[in-house]
């Protein structure tokens, strides 16, 4: 704080309350006091529950069995040995990778198509971002409505386009239920990739392309030697943010397939919800959520460290 700023004549008129102990205290510890309410709230409603669940991991916390007896690692062994847990984890990984990959590619193509201005660009932009503001529950419901016979028009449209009758049971027939889930997720989150990548594309300085053009570089070459390297940190950012949300996949499953048929479309979140809140094996579900969290934090550490390195460069 430099004295040269402002006029010191005003400083003489300091009100007397500034000398009271309270305001002195506030002034001295201001930097901590203003962060305190938010930090306390996070500690109470996020960190304390996590610590509490550490204890739940090792006891029996089950609404069907009274008492909280210490059971050691039994909750962990139960969940690890559960074939439903294994397949749910596998499906979560596959769906996350497939969803994010498709969303990235479509988002990139959209961003490339939208980077130059044209008439009606504002309207197209406004339409493309609509899915970002819709609850995933509604996205799941409206895709279920659109796809599933007898109500949905999807089969009718497909049979008109292909010129032969199409009868797909989108939510109950393998592999169509996976495809239906992917369609809903891609519909909702491609705009996320698109918006971020478009911002990245727009930030690439035009002189790089002009220089490439002077060197007689083709459009394709310019894409791989100018666009991709310039965009790399933003690609990493977009994929990191998206991937860490994609692994949570729950709402769409809940609305479209309910995990079914059978347990075929259980994702990690949906499995933990079933075990914890439908079967009320709270300890087993807690142990499962810790395993999920630990696996996820490995991914987070790798991706976020990369991200920070890219930012610093």
């Amino acid at each position, binding site marked *: 704080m430099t004295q040269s700023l402002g006029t010191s004549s005003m400083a003489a008129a300091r009100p007397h309350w500034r000398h009271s102990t309270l305001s002195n205290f506030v002034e001295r510890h201001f*930097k901590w006091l203003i962060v305190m309410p938010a930090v306390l709230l996070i500690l109470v409603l996020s960190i304390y529950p996590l610590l509490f669940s550490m204890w739940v991991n090792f006891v029996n916390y089950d609404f069907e069995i009274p008492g909280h007896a210490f059971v050691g690692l039994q909750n962990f062994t139960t969940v690890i040995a559960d074939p439903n847990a294994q397949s749910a984890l596998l499906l979560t990984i596959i769906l996350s990778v497939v969803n994010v990959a498709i969303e990235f590619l479509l988002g990139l193509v959209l961003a490339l198509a939208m980077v130059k201005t044209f008439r009606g660009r504002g309207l*197209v932009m406004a339409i493309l971002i609509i899915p*970002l503001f819709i609850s995933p529950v*509604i996205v799941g419901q409206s895709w279920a409505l659109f796809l599933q016979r007898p109500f949905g028009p999807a089969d009718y449209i497909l049979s008109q386009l292909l010129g032969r009758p199409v009868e797909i049971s989108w939510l109950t027939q393998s592999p169509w239920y996976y495809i239906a889930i992917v369609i809903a997720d891609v519909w909702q989150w491609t705009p996320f990739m698109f918006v971020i990548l478009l911002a990245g594309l727009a930030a690439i300085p035009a002189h790089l392309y002009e220089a490439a053009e002077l060197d007689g570089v083709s459009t394709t070459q310019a894409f791989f030697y100018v666009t991709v390297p310039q965009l790399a940190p933003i690609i990493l950012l977009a994929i990191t943010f998206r991937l860490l949300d994609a692994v949570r996949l729950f709402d769409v499953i809940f609305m479209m397939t309910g995990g079914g048929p059978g347990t075929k479309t259980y994702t990690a979140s949906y499995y933990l919800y079933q075990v914890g809140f439908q079967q009320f094996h709270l300890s087993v579900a807690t142990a499962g959520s810790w395993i999920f969290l630990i696996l996820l934090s490995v991914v987070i550490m790798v991706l976020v460290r990369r991200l920070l390195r890219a930012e610093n460069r």
Partner: protein
Amino acid sequence: MAGSLKVRRRARRGRGSSAVRFVFLALFVLFVLVPIYWMVITSIKPTSDYLTVPPVWFPAEPTIVHYTAALFSYRGLQGLINSLIVASAATVLSTLLGTMMAYGLARFNTGGHHLAFWVLSQRFLPPVAIILPIFLLFRSWHLYDTHIGLILIYTVMTLPLTVWMMYAYFRQLPRSLEEAALVDGLSRWQAMWMIAVPLAAPGIAAAAVFAFISVWTEFFFALILTSRHAFTLPTVFRAFLGFQGAQYGEACALATTSLVPSIILGMLVQRHLVRGLTLGALRG
């Protein structure tokens, strides 16, 4: 000469690729709009138009009966009111606490990078990891199925967003005005509220809208932490699971009711969208 030739060739290729571009954009716009259109149209379709082949793309006699049914027979109105209460209160709380914290991080570097990244890490914590203990604690704290409980959990959920968006925003603002105010005898508290916050008002408004939208559309916490009393609008859609009663119109009427406010709000903050999606990491 060679230069102008190259330019002409490039222009021709540009025209060809722009046709591909517009076809692709048109198809994607269609892909985005068709399910929404189908939903909105279904919400005003009479029941007799439900199962026709070919499907009815616009009903000859639109009706609003599904809206009254969804709002009154399926407790949609109660869900709507609860959602408004919870989302508004959580938005105010999160914006208030988040702005204060962001100011501390940006101006005083409180806690260094560690504190800032600790808050960010909360954003990446999957809800399913904390929902079980939260559920147990809420039951013993008598917060289960209350507005207050949901408001608090949504405040925590949106804090990383408001803190980081405002953190990025405050760092862009010059310090000199606040420093001058301090020299003029204002307390740090006053300098924050009277100088920095008004300057950051557009950013604060955008952060608040994003917080509101993310609470408005949230399902998982509300599903588990509420039942008969504090249930929010997204949880009402459970009534239509599987459509055993063929309540297509009711489901769509409720969905339309829910998405109109969040889309309108979203369009208002479109300019800040990149910031909102990346928690201020990118400016857009």
